[in-house]
């Protein structure tokens, strides 16, 4: 799937095509719908009932956890009609691209880990019970018997459940490096082998329970880690699946909906009002206004006429257009942006997480310690069996059980709490990077503002009702703002859109017009306004404002209070940017910044040693988003922007981002605390093991106690 932007509303019947691509299976076909607002049993019932009532629907099943519905339909049904039916019942729905979802739906690794976790958990419980008998004083034949039973349970369980560690450790060894899994595998294998030998020799100490509880606790950490990643990835994939880029190609008199790869330079495409341009082109026919906000940050739509160049990603607002394609594929401005993102990301390099860094120090240290213990005792007593026993005890006790849980447990708790507030972490290390920031760069249009204008000037009810009656006939953002400003639109008849100019209609035999200054014979230097004429009356000015998003002012204030330097970089005009910079008290403000300019600004900040959080939503931000230490994008922004960012704000409330920074910092603190807790347990237990006093009981106690303390500490993340 290419990352070309297209609005979900303007794609035509992708469901039928998806199925056509999948092959010759005729019926039933499956449509996936995203239902972002469902939350209760009532919603499930009403959604499923509504969907089943649509003729042609074979079955419908809602998944409340994923906020998604899976509908089996016959070939006559399009997703649009299902969405319309749900809308009628009061549920917002959007179609999801089935192929994109299916690409990662089957989580085999996760289920494998869960099964291994279950097996090692049950085996651990049984062996622990048997071990209690040994610890409480079973002797001679009874003890040997209990050891043998433990061995029959433990050995196959370990062989099955600990495979993830063996595989990963073996891969690291083959690449001549050490990871956390090497000491883990070694400890598990040595513990099992040593215990088997001791059992056969009738010895007192067998570590079967330790081998199993190691496996269990570490698998738990591994599973949590995996689940956090998968949850983030599948949510990100769902956002991508919302947008399936398509174009309507004109060949002679024919119109056909094609995918973007089928287009060539010189092809004519049809661009209906409300659609985004899928490729770069020149207008050959039609008049309209283009919304360039996602590309440049300009809030005021630009008039378009034959000869005007259109870039991929621009939204056609008022009139139908025919475009001649000038560039496709590699050369589109969209691809050039993508290229910029790729370059910026290469420069960023790989971020080493706290757990990775801890493992790099820890793994060699553990091996060294065990080796010293073995050599020391070997040299002092010359008893191979005793020396090996002690070395194994050291390995088991120092085994990074708590370390394996320390970071994933915190990350899971924090990511879950952030997700409930509408903040999605796309990248595993995003949280740690977010905790390190010292500067924040904001984009303006669409990020701090809603990107949709609101009628700002005040008018009497009659004027409003006439304007609204007329505005109903247009998709222009200003018209929609006017239509939304009153409940009682006048019954205007014969509404006709004059592309690139405005709308006109009749009310009680009088011609009324709503449109730009030039069309209505007046002048306007300020901008962000439209004019209304009623019959021969003088034009009336209606002005608009781009509202701040909820929480924008609080967010900037809270960042300043946290001691972060705040920047506002916008592609919009000087006045609008200055006004917002003053209103929200930014430290630094710059207007008319090109995408390259933003990227350069970010790189300069990075060179100066700053760790920057970039918040954006548009194509003009993508380079900067990718170059930043960590980046956040609005979920309503363009696909390209979301692809380039680490964090996605799902519900438009900016305040959530401020709390996300606080959560990230608290999470980082908890991770470090967890490392300290694990360290303290080792500090106490290692000397005991080195001195040769470690018993299986002490190992079991130290391991369980530290793992449980670390998990409980992780839950304190707010």
């Amino acid at each position, binding site marked *: 799937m290419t990352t070309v932007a297209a609005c979900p509303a303007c794609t035509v019947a992708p469901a039928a095509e998806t199925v056509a691509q999948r092959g010759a299976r005729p019926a039933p076909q499956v449509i996936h719908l995203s239902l972002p607002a469902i939350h209760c049993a009532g919603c*499930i019932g009403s959604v499923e009932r509504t969907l089943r009532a649509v003729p042609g629907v074979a*079955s419908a099943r809602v998944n409340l956890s994923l906020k998604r519905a899976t509908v089996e339909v016959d070939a006559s049904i399009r997703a649009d009609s299902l969405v319309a039916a749900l809308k009628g019942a009061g549920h917002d729905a959007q179609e999801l691209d089935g192929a994109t979802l299916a690409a990662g739906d089957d989580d085999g690794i996760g289920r494998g880990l869960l099964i291994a976790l279950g097996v090692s958990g*049950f085996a651990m419980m049984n062996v622990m019970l048997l071990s209690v008998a040994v610890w409480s004083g079973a002797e001679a034949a009874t003890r040997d018997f209990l050891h043998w039973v433990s061995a029959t349970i433990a050995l196959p369980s370990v062989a099955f459940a600990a495979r993830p560690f063996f595989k990963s450790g073996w891969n690291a060894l083959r690449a001549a490096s050490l990871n956390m899994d090497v000491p883990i595998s070694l400890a598990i294998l040595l513990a099992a082998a040593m215990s088997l030998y001791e059992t056969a020799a009738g010895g007192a100490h067998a570590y079967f329970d330790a081998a199993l509880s190691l496996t269990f606790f570490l698998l738990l950490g591994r599973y949590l880690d995996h689940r956090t990643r998968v949850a983030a990835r599948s949510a990100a994939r769902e956002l991508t699946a919302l947008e399936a880029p398509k174009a309507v190609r004109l060949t002679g008199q024919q119109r056909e909906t094609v995918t973007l790869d089928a287009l060539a330079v010189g092809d004519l495409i049809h661009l209906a009002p409300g659609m985004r341009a899928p490729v770069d082109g020149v207008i050959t026919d039609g008049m309209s206004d283009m919304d360039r906000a996602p590309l440049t940050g300009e809030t005021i739509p630009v008039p378009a006429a034959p000869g005007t160049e259109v870039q991929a990603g621009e939204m056609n607002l008022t009139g139908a257009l025919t475009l001649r394609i000038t560039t496709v594929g590699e050369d589109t401005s969209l691809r050039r942006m993508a290229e910029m993102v790729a370059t910026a990301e290469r420069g960023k390099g790989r971020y080493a997480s706290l757990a990775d860094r801890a493992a790099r120090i820890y793994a060699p240290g553990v091996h060294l310690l065990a080796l010293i213990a073995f050599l020391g005792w070997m040299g002092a007593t010359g008893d191979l069996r005793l020396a090996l026993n002690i070395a194994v005890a050291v390995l088991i006790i120092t085994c990074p059980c708590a370390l394996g849980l320390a970071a994933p447990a915190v990350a899971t708790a924090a990511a879950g709490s952030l997700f409930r507030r509408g903040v999605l972490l796309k990248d595993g290390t995003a949280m740690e990077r977010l905790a390190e920031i010292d500067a924040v760069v904001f984009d303006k249009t669409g990020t701090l503002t809603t990107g949709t204008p609101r009628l700002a000037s005040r008018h009497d009810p009659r004027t409003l009702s006439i304007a609204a009656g007329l505005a109903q006939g247009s998709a222009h953002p200003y018209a929609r703002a006017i239509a939304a400003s009153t409940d009682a639109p006048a019954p205007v008849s014969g509404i006709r859109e004059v592309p690139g100019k405005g709308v006109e209609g009749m009310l009680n035999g009088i011609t009324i017009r709503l449109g730009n200054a030039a069309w209505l014979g007046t002048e306007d230097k300020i901008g962000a306004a439209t004019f209304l004429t009623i019959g021969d009356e003088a034009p009336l000015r209606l002005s608009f404002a781009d509202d701040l998003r909820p929480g924008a002012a609080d967010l900037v204030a809270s960042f300043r209070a946290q001691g972060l330097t705040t920047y506002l970089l916008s592609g919009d005009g000087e006045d609008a940017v200055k006004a917002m910079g003053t209103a929200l008290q930014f430290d630094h403000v710059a207007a008319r910044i090109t995408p390259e300019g933003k990227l350069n600004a970010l790189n300069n900040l990075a060179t100066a040693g700053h760790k920057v959080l970039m918040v954006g939503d548009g194509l003009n931000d993508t380079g900067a988003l990718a170059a930043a230490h960590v980046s956040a994008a609005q979920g309503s922004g363009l696909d390209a922007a979301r692809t380039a960012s680490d964090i996605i704000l799902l519900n438009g409330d900016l305040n959530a981002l401020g709390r996300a920074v606080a959560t990230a910092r608290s999470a980082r603190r908890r991770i470090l605390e967890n490392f300290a807790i694990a360290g303290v347990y080792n500090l106490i237990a290692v000397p005991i093991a080195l001195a040769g006093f470690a018993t299986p009981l002490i190992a079991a106690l130290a391991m369980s106690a530290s793992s449980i303390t670390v998990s409980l500490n992780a839950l304190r993340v707010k």
Partner: protein
Amino acid sequence: MQILIFLIPVSLALGALGVGAFLWAIRTRQFSDLEGDGARILLDKEPEDY
């Protein structure tokens, strides 16, 4: 201590039963929609086709 001859196999069988139930739950995707299944018991009538 003769009792161990019975009790240990019994406890192992119970453990195996638990593992079996767990494997069944994973294989049949009982955990795919925890919230939804929790909410569904509040519905008056479970739809016929499931």
